[in-house]
C-alpha cells in the first residue's frame, strides 16, 4: 500500500518524529529555537543576520511602552516570542497617533492593538498557553525578486539543515486563495530551490506541478535567488548556533539588508518535499553515510552543493 511513497523516499511524520527529531534534537536545546528572543540573541552572537529587535514586552504594563519603542520606526512587526505557525503576528505598515495600519490595510485602534498584545503576553499564541513575551522588531522590506510571483503575504525561504548540511530548500509564495498565508496546505504555492544553483524548480500548488503563478501568471520555475550562497552558509551556521541535528531555517530577503534569518524550527514541516517533488529520505541517508570529521559551515555547503545539483 505504501510502496509508492517508500519508493519516492518520502519522509512522513512518524519517521520524522521518531528517527530524526527524537534522535537528533535533544530536548534541552529546544528553548534556543522555541524562544525567538533567545534565537535572535544567539544569531547575533554567531554572526547570522536577523531582523533588528526594537524591544520586548514581557508584562501587561509594558504594553504602554510600545509607542515609545516604535516612535522612530514607521513600520514594525509584533510577534509572540513562543509563537508557532505564524499565529499572532501583526505587521504594522504605518502608524499615526493611536491608529496602526497593517500591511493588509486593516486599521488597529490603540485599544485593539493593546488587547492583542495582552493576549499574546498571556500566552494565547504560545505552545501550551504559557505566559509569553511580545517581540517588536524590524519589518522586512521584501526584495523585489519575488514581486512577480507573490500575492500579498510574505515569501519566505525554508532550508532544512541536517547535521549542519543544507539538504533541501523551498520558497513559499502566498496566493490569493491562501489569503496571503504561506502554508502549502492552505493554498500557498511552494517551489523547490536547487541547492547548487539557487534557481527555483517544480512549482507545486495543492497536489499539482505548475509553472506559473495562479494569480500573476508569471513563471515560478527558473527564478534565480540572489545571495543564495550566503543564505546556505547562514543556514549551515545555524547548526552550530543551536546544536540541533534536524533543523528548519526560515530566511527572508530584505531589499536593503540582504538575507535575514527569521526563525528556526526544531520540528520543520514535511511539505518541503511536496514543493521539491521528491522525498527527503535518500538525501538524509546520504549525509548519514558521509558525515565524518569536523567541517566548517562553508565546507559543508560546498559538499552539499556538489551532491544535490539538479539538471540545468
Amino acid at each position, binding site marked *: 500500500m505504501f510502496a509508492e*511513497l517508500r519508493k*519516492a523516499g*518520502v519522509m512522513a511524520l*512518524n519517521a520524522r518524529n*521518531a528517527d530524526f527529531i527524537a534522535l537528533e534534537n535533544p530536548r534541552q536545546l529546544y528553548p534556543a529555537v522555541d524562544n525567538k528572543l533567545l534565537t535572535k540573541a544567539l544569531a547575533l552572537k554567531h554572526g547570522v543576520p536577523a531582523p533588528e529587535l526594537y524591544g520586548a514586552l514581557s508584562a501587561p504594563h509594558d504594553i504602554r511602552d510600545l509607542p515609545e519603542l516604535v516612535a522612530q520606526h514607521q513600520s514594525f512587526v509584533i510577534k509572540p516570542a513562543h509563537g508557532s505557525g505564524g499565529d499572532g503576528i501583526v505587521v504594522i505598515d504605518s502608524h499615526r497617533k493611536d491608529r496602526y495600519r497593517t500591511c493588509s490595510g486593516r486599521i488597529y485602534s490603540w485599544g485593539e492593538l493593546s488587547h492583542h498584545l495582552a493576549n499574546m503576553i498571556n500566552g494565547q499564541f504560545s505552545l501550551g498557553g504559557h505566559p509569553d513575551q511580545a517581540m517588536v522588531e524590524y519589518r522586512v522590506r521584501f526584495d523585489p525578486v519575488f514581486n512577480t510571483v507573490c500575492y500579498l503575504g510574505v515569501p519566505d525561504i525554508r532550508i532544512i539543515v541536517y547535521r549542519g548540511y543544507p539538504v533541501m530548500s523551498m520558497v513559499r509564495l502566498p496566493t490569493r486563495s491562501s489569503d496571503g498565508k504561506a502554508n502549502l496546505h492552505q493554498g500557498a504555492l511552494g517551489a523547490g530551490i536547487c541547492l547548487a544553483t539557487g534557481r527555483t524548480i517544480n512549482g507545486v500548488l495543492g497536489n499539482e506541478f505548475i509553472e506559473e503563478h495562479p494569480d500573476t501568471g508569471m513563471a515560478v520555475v527558473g527564478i534565480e535567488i540572489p545571495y543564495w550562497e550566503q543564505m546556505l552558509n547562514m543556514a549551515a551556521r545555524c547548526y552550530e548556533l543551536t546544536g540541533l541535528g534536524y533543523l528548519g531555517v526560515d530566511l527572508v530577503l530584505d531589499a536593503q539588508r540582504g538575507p535575514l534569518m527569521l526563525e528556526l524550527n526544531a520540528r520543520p514541516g514535511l511539505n518541503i518535499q*511536496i514543493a521539491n*517533488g521528491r522525498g527527503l529520505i*535518500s*538525501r538524509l541517508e546520504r549525509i548519514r553515510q558521509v558525515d565524518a570529521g569536523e567541517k566548517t559551515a562553508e565546507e559543508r555547503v560546498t559538499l552539499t552543493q556538489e551532491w544535490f545539483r539538479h539538471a540545468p
Partner: protein
Amino acid sequence: MNLRHLFVLVATLVVIGVSAFTYKVTRLGFPLLPDASSQLWTVEARIEFMRYTPGPAKVALEVPTNPVGFGVLNEHFVSRGYGVSIREEGGRREALWAIRRVQGDQAVYYRLSLFRDQDAKPPRGADAFPPVPELEEPYASALEMVISEVREESADVATFTGTLLRRVRKANADDDVALLLEDAQTPLQRAEVARMLLAGARIPARVLQALPLTSDTRQVAMMPWLAVHNGTQWLYFDPASGEQSLPRDLFIWSWDSASVMSVSGGTGERIEFWVTRKLEDALSVAKRRAASHGSRIVDFSLLDLPLQTQSVYSILIMIPIGALLVVLMRNIVGVRTFGTFLPVLVALAFRESQLISGIILFSTLVAVGLAVRFYLERLHLLLVPRLAAVLIVVVLMMAAVSVLSYRLGLEIGLSVALFPMVILTMVIERMSVVWEERGPGDAIKEGLGSLFVAALVYGVMNIDLIRHVTFVFPEVLLIVLAVVLLLGRYTGYRLTDLRRFRVLTRNPPTPGPD
C-alpha cells in the same frame, strides 16, 4: 541498542501479561466470555429417623473431604434444635448432630455445593499393605486359587484388578469366585469381596461410596467404587464392569465401605441423597475456586474491591483501550483530533448518554460555546478570564440542557453532566483559535475527527467481551502497553500520508538528485 531495549521490554510485558492471563483462564477457570456460567451441584443428604419416647438423640454422618475432581464451595448443616459439631479423624470427617431431648419424626440435613475442579489435590496417601485375610476352608483355598489364576493373566496392579473384577462379574461360570460370593447380594458386598481378594494379593484397595451427579434434580443412591493403590497413585475401577475409570460426574463421598450414617437414640433411620445442578455465574465460582486453591491472585484483584469501587474501575480500566485506539487513529491512520485524549473522555461520557444523543449534546455544547467564545472575543478580554467565562457558560449550558430535557421527559439530557467540562472549554478555545487562524474548514475537520474517534472508542468500549476481559484480566493491559510501546517506534507512513504526498509519487518535471 535502544530498539533492543524496547523489544526486551515489550517481550517481558507480553510474557507477564499472557502468562497471568493463561494461568487465570486455565488454572483458575476464570471465564473468557461475559455471562459464562459454570456447573454447580448441590448435594443434599437428608437423614430421617423416629424417636418414640422423649430422650436424647445423636446422628453421625460422614461428610466428604477433598473430593477428587471437585471443589467444595460451601456446606451447611441444617436441623431443628440440634447442636452440630465436626469431628476429624484419620482422614475421615464426621458431622455430629446431637440433642438432649426429642420425640417424634426427626430430620437433619447436610447440604454442600460442588464445582468441578480438576486440579484438586490428590485425595490421600497410600494405605499400608493389607494383611492376607485369614479364612476358613474351603474359602481360603478358593481365594488362593483365584489369586494365582488372576496373577497368571495380569502384569501389574491395574491389569490384576481389572481381570479380578471381570472374574467377579462372571461369577456363575467360575466356581471358586462363586463360592466366595455366595453371601454377597448387593453391589457393595460384591465390591467388598473384590477388596478382600485384592487384600489376598496384598494390594491396598478401598471400597468407595460415590454419588452420580445428574443434570436434573433427583434422588440418587450411593454406589460402590473401587480404588486401588499401585504404589504411586490411586487407580479407580468400576466394580460392576471391571473397567478402570472415574467418570467425571462421579462424586466420591466416602473412602470407606462402612455406612456413612449412624443414629443413636432413634429407630427407622434412613438417608436420602438429592442432587441438583444449577448454572451459576462462572466468575463467582472461579473466585471461590481460586480461594479454595489458596491462590492470592483474587485477593489482590479488582474483583475483591467494594462493589462501588469495582464499578468505577470497570470504566477506568477501559481507558487504556481507548488510548490504544487513539494511538492507532492518530499515528497509523492519521486522523486529527482536538486534544490528545479528549476523544476517550468524550467516549466515556457517551457511555451514559448513548451514542446519537451524545453526539448531539457534544455538538450543541461546542457550537454554543464557540458562539459565546466569538462574542467574548469582541469584548477584548484577557486570556484566563475569557477561558473562565467560557467554562462558566459551558457549565450553565449543561445545567440548562439537563433541566430542559428533564422537563420534557427526556432522561438522556441528564447524562450531559458527565461531559468533561474543563476539557470541553479547552476544545472550544482551541477550536476558535484554529477557526480564526486557519479558517473554519480546518476547525470543523478537526472537530469531526475528534467526534469520529470518540464514537469509535465508544463502540469498542461497548463491546461486552472487551469490557469483561479488561476487568477480569487487567493483566491484558500489559499487552496493550506493549503494543503502545511498539507503536511508539512505528516510523512508517500513515494512511493520510497517501493523500498528502500523492504528488511525490509522480515524476517531477525537473530531474535531479534524489
